[in-house]
């Protein structure tokens, strides 16, 4: 009860402050608002620059992808790191490495199959068997076409991860782990960041700044720096996809089994 | 402008004992080596201090800035040696050697535990003492002041029993508490008021600032109580509390290092921070003087009632310290001279007394005044020294105490403070009252008041003195106390340099 009263007070105060500020906002959907067009007298908003020049700079029609991986690629590197961190943190928190209750419980897998019943095995299992490859190819498409359509490394990665989750849900986690083992997902997650950071780091070798993929022109053999950026963005997206895929599946695997990687959802 | 000399001597003097600490710890298994290191460091230190003496006597000032301050924004660790510092350093470093010697005897005599720690912290506290003596600005002063508080704490609580814990707690809470609560803000306030200047120099730090009466009074009192090592009432009770310490420590604390650092700081504050001019203009020193006077009288009266010898000595110390403060507070040339000299005089005399108390304890295990009757028979040297020491404290000839007290009294008269003059005289009487009867019954006990085995005529065969390592130092200090009465010239010279330096 005390918490509720306290919560009410806190919420009222915060809400009042926020609403007090809201009346000061530019109108919703105003294309001339400072966020969209910059402040008068100040420099024009970065967003205008992006809209006008991104395609010229990077040859990527999807502005969001371009900004995400190039202009603000530094942010995104850490976004990936956040995901990786989450995976590691969950691992550190949950994973049971010593088998604490191994002797008491027989392998839960053996009981699972009977309990799922034919129904689940047949209907869900077969659906997933059909769906999973489709999901995967679609996810890879999403990763590869982040330049042109919505999506990119993160979304594709989540879907790839979801496809493995789907395998785990339709059959058992063991099936999924057989395809994507613990060692490999940790390694793949690290590899993903390595790809990202490596691609971002390469320009340093060429004497340019971090994340400046334009420097990779020579390496990739593209005509202009723009295409080099475009390819750099692709490399980065790939790294993100790897990490996200691995971590999403890792999180699921650990959460559903409380870190034992046996039984589970 | 004063003529200053740049020299690393003060630093070496400080470091001599600091460097001894690791050596002492290193040689913790080799008792002999350890003690050798202690003496070596003491001798080295004394030598460094002596080496500076001629320079100071020439009327110069040694200046050394250790960590350079940039643009006046920070406070360097700086040394500055003038007459006052020199005198204090002389006293401290010379007495350290003796105290070390005494400590060796005392510790061995009583088989005290953890002697390594004892000697290590002893050296450390001496380093701090010299640091205070040579401090070139308020911050350095404060730094070493705190260092001294902390490094003496393990000494005070040396026995690590319940009593020691209580005493140590009182000790630290008073010293640290007051220094953080009063001295630190006072320093900071000074720092801000003076526009970032805290270095001692020919000009007092606050001489230029136009302080009003009340802030100045508050500041002065903050300093006076903040440096509570000076034992001004009502922040005096750490001193009797610290009596739980082994006697060499008490000697060091109550005669040389700690308490003298307190009064030294107050003299520094009065002369170096406020300056005679400012104080004279504002008249805030009167308040300080009266507080000191109150302390003098009260503590003497309390001392009379104490049966524990060391406690009686402690209260006596409080009173004597208040003399010095009082002398400083009078800010006349004579009174200042008196109070500076009294630092030395009281140091020598009081250390003798403590040594004696310790020697009595080592030899007989007696702690109380009432047990002393007839002791002059078995420990004639000790009690003789005790007598000489008490002469010094009371201010009777032949002792350095006479000279300093004389200056003080005359200074009080000079300042026109007849009431304070009376205080001096009264307290001298009281001093005599609490020391002389003690000596008297030691040598001439009443019949029947002493155990039978003591009640016999004096003979050298019956002498049961403490170990020689205890007796020799106390004899030396007793002699020093007397001897300096005859050759106090260089001390007066030093004082004179100091007085000249502050522009009186």
């Amino acid at each position: 009860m005390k918490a509720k009263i306290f919560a009410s007070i806190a919420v009222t105060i915060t809400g009042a402050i926020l609403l007090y500020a809201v009346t000061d906002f530019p109108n919703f959907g105003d294309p001339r608002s400072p966020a969209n067009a910059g402040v008068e007298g100040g420099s024009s908003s970065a967003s205008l620059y992006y809209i006008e020049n991104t395609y010229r700079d990077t040859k990527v029609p999807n502005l969001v992808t371009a900004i995400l991986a190039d202009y603000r690629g530094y942010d995104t590197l850490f976004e990936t790191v956040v995901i990786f961190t989450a995976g590691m943190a969950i691992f550190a928190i949950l994973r049971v490495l010593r088998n604490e209750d191994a002797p008491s419980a027989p392998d839960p897998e053996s009981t699972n199959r009977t309990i799922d019943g034919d129904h689940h095995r047949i209907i869900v299992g077969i659906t997933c068997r059909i769906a999973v490859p489709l999901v995967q190819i679609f996810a890879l498409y999403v990763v590869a076409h982040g330049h042109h359509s919505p999506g990119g490394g993160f979304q594709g990665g989540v879907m790839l991860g979801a496809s493995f989750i789907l395998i785990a849900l339709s059959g058992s986690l063991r099936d999924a782990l057989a395809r994507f083992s613990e060692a490999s997902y940790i390694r793949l997650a690290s590899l993903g960041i390595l790809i990202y950071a490596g691609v971002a780091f390469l320009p340093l070798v060429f004497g340019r700044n971090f994340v400046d993929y334009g420097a990779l022109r020579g390496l990739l053999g593209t005509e202009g720096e723009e295409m080099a950026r475009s390819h750099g963005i692709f490399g980065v997206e790939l790294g993100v996809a790897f990490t996200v895929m691995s971590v999403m599946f890792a999180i699921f695997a650990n959460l559903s089994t409380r870190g034992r990687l046996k039984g589970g959802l | 402008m004063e003529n200053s000399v740049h020299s690393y001597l003060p630093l070496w003097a400080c470091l001599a004992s600091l460097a001894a600490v690791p050596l002492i710890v290193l040689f913790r298994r080799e008792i002999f080596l350890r003690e050798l290191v202690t003496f070596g460091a003491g001798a080295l230190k004394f030598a460094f201090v002596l080496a500076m003496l001629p320079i100071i006597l020439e009327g110069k000032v040694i200046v050394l800035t250790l960590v350079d301050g940039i643009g006046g924004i920070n406070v360097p660790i700086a040394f500055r040696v003038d007459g006052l510092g020199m005198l204090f350093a002389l006293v401290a470093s010379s007495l350290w050697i003796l105290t070390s010697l005494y400590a060796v005897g005392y510790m061995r005599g009583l088989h005290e535990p953890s002697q390594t720690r004892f000697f290590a912290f002893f050296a450390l506290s001496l380093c701090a003492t010299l640091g205070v003596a040579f401090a070139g600005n308020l911050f350095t002063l404060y730094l070493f002041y705190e260092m001294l508080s902390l490094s003496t704490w393990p000494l005070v609580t040396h026995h690590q029993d319940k009593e020691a814990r209580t005493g140590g707690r009182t000790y630290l809470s008073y010293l640290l508490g007051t220094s953080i609560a009063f001295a630190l803000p006072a320093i900071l306030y000074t720092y801000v008021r003076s526009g970032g200047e805290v270095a001692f120099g020919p000009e007092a730090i606050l001489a230029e600032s136009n302080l009003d009466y009340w802030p100045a009074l508050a500041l002065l009192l903050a300093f006076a109580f903040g440096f509570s090592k000076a034992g001004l009432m009502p922040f005096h009770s750490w001193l009797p509390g610290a009596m739980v310490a082994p006697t060499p420590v008490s000697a060091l604390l109550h005669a040389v290092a700690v308490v003298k650092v307190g009064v030294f700081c107050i003299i520094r504050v009065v002369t170096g921070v406020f300056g005679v001019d400012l104080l004279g203009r504002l008249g805030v020193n009167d308040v300080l003087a009266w507080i000191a006077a109150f302390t003098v009288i009260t503590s003497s009266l309390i001392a009379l009632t104490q049966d524990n010898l060391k406690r009686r000595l402690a209260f006596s110390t409080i009173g004597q310290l208040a003399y010095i403060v009082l002398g400083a507070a009078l800010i006349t040339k004579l009174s200042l001279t008196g109070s500076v000299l009294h630092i030395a005089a009281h140091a020598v005399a009081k250390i003798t007394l403590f040594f004696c108390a310790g020697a009595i304890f080592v030899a007989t295990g007696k702690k109380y005044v009432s047990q002393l009757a007839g002791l002059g028979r078995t420990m004639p040297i000790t009690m003789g020294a005790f007598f000489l020491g008490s002469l010094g404290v009371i201010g009777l000839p032949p002792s350095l105490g006479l000279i300093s007290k004389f200056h003080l009294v005359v200074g009080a008269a000079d300042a026109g403070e007849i009431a304070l003059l009376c205080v001096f005289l009264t307290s001298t009487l009281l001093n005599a009252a609490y020391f002389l009867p003690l000596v008297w019954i030691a040598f001439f006990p009443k019949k029947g008041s002493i155990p039978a085995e003591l009640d016999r005529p004096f003979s050298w065969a019956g002498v049961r003195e403490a170990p020689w390592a205890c007796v020799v130092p106390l004899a030396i200090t007793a002699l020093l106390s007397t001897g300096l009465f005859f050759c106090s010239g260089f001390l007066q010279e030093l004082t004179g340099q100091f007085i000249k330096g502050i522009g009186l």
Partner: protein
Amino acid sequence: MILTILSIVLILSGLVFFLGAAVGLMRFPDFYSRMHAAGKGDTLSTLLVISGFALYQLRDIHDLSHDWPVLLVVLKLLAIVVFIYLTSPTSTSALADAGWEDGIDPVIEPGRENHLEDDCHRTPPSSPQP
């Protein structure tokens, strides 16, 4: 134009089925009957609406060599339909099964049989492994 009208018709009929599903969802008495409404109504109406839009997209195709991306869009729309076809009944029956496992009793018209109740008392099935 024909295409447009056709697509509009398709979409509208899809909406009608959606409406049916929604009403069914509201009115049916128990979980299992609601499954009927939800599972079936949505599948078909999704099919109808999306193919309606797909048809509408076809309208834009004049010259296949130039407008093939639009065709691909149409194909993608159909892919959604196919996918929903695949998944919707699956999830419907999986949920129905789950509902049974969860202990929801179906409302059975008096006089009709409930064989599941008879055979399978909601204990884990103990049929032999295939």
